[in-house]
């Protein structure tokens, strides 16, 4: 996953404000959180920035499949162990006797389910990282030793 600084280094760094953001640094933050697109930066569309634009787009490629909350599940890294299913506080609250006790989820209110050996995210709006009262929750990332879940 790219960092804000990596994206910033590839921008024109002129703080021209044409994109609507006050600085290029603010634009790179917006890029990473998918609020802005690369094409909204007019100077980078010029021929002299062609290489930088291509690199920027390739860096942002992994964030394309992110959910509304910014969650990305990498199926190639997931072992289907279900640690995230059981550790997620929303899953425990919505299904205390199923997912909360380590068994298979018993209803459809849970966020994570393991399908065909890989975890799939549902009900993403229930996630604690979503909505007005969002918090920076790490409950599904911490128990995953392979790094299959990421937030952008």
């Amino acid at each position, binding site marked *: 996953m790219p960092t804000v600084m990596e994206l910033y280094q590839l921008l024109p760094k002129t703080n021209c404000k044409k994109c609507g953001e006050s600085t290029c640094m603010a634009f790179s933050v917006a890029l990473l959180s998918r609020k802005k697109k690369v094409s909204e930066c007019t100077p980078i569309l010029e021929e002299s920035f062609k290489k930088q634009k291509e690199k920027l787009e390739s860096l942002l490629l992994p964030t394309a499949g992110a959910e509304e909350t910014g969650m990305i599940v990498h199926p190639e890294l997931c*072992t289907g162990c*279900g640690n995230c299913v*059981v550790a997620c506080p929303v899953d425990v609250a919505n299904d205390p006797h199923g997912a909360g006790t380590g068994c*298979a989820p018993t209803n459809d209110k849970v966020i994570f389910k393991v399908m*065909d*050996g890989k975890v799939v995210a549902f009900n993403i709006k229930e996630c604690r990282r979503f909505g007005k009262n969002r918090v920076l929750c790490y409950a599904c990332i911490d*128990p995953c*030793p392979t790094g299959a879940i990421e937030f952008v």
Partner: protein
Amino acid sequence: MVTCTGCALLCEDIEVVLENGGIKESRNACRRGAARFRGCKNRLAPSVDKKQTDIDTAIKKAAEILKNAKSLMLFGWSNSTCEAQAKGIQLAKKLNAAIDDTSSFCQGLLIERVLQKKFRTCSLEDVRNRADVLVYWGSDAQDSQPRHLSRFSVFPRGESRQRGYEEDRLAIAIDVRESNTAKICKGHFYRIPLKGDREFILALMEALVGKVPKYDAKRMLELAGIMKKAEFGVIFAGIGLTYSIKDDIDILVSLADMLPNFHVMPMVGHYNMRGFNEALFKETGFVNRVKFGVKPVHDNKYAVVEALKSKSIDALLITGSDPLSSLPRSILSHLASIPVICIDPCVTLTSKIAAVTIPAAASGLECGGSAVRMDGKVIEISKVVENSYLTDAQILTRLMEGL
């Protein structure tokens, strides 16, 4: 709900979606279990001397080999149901053959002591409901039994452990490398050198009696403190620990005796290895490496590796195992020179050199039965898809009739 036979956890909460008589998708199973439900890519065909034939001819030829063998060994069993294992022991008795299973080079030593009641042990439900200190010793459960941590040990909320891993449980890893399990244990990972388990146990024993250990004193005292305070501790003894202290396994018994609140659980890989060990223990008092005769004899020379190395057997019946791809190279020459009968659902390296191959139904998928989980609980296995393959037990019955 069906039972997964991917590992010795025997998860009973798996859902499968069927389509056209086959499995389209499995739910709740880990990657290992999902692969098991997908079945094998290369189905084994009945053959005699590498020429394809029908199943009746293959069984007839196999019975002939069994009859003519002077020093026969039956091996495998860990991937068969309890019913097939019982038939296997019956067959070994009838033929006065040696019988061994994969626990011979796996967790046999520990399971034997558990069955002899030298260790306190507990069920996985007890772990979920009561355990507060979990020690993964020489075991990478996260990769070998992927749902162990989420279903029973670290993450679930249990009756006396309502706050789960966040406050109520502490996971410790002792290993030679930073495995995926060790990554979850984070601040409580103790890295030891190769074969350093014995020294670590001795240092821990010193720390437990209040002496200052010679080895990493600060961390050993910290670990001893955690273990002494535990209300319900479990040591998940992996194959790394068993291999490292196999010449002096009783040192672990001494350590367990010093920890009254601790239980020891051998981490079994194959789904029904413990089932075979229990069945043979009931019959003979030994868990593996047994030769039937006037009375059953237990000796290291009846271990599959030793027997093949010393060239003391002249025929081998393998049920649901692939020794050619998992055992040392030194056994190869003898394995290739004797008639091998291979009963397996899939084509394996061993089946390629076998004199007779007999295809069997994959247990947990194409046939049901019962199996013993790693903690000793008997779990029913369900049949998921319809098929015409013979089960291991049926093949062994027909072999016995053929004799």
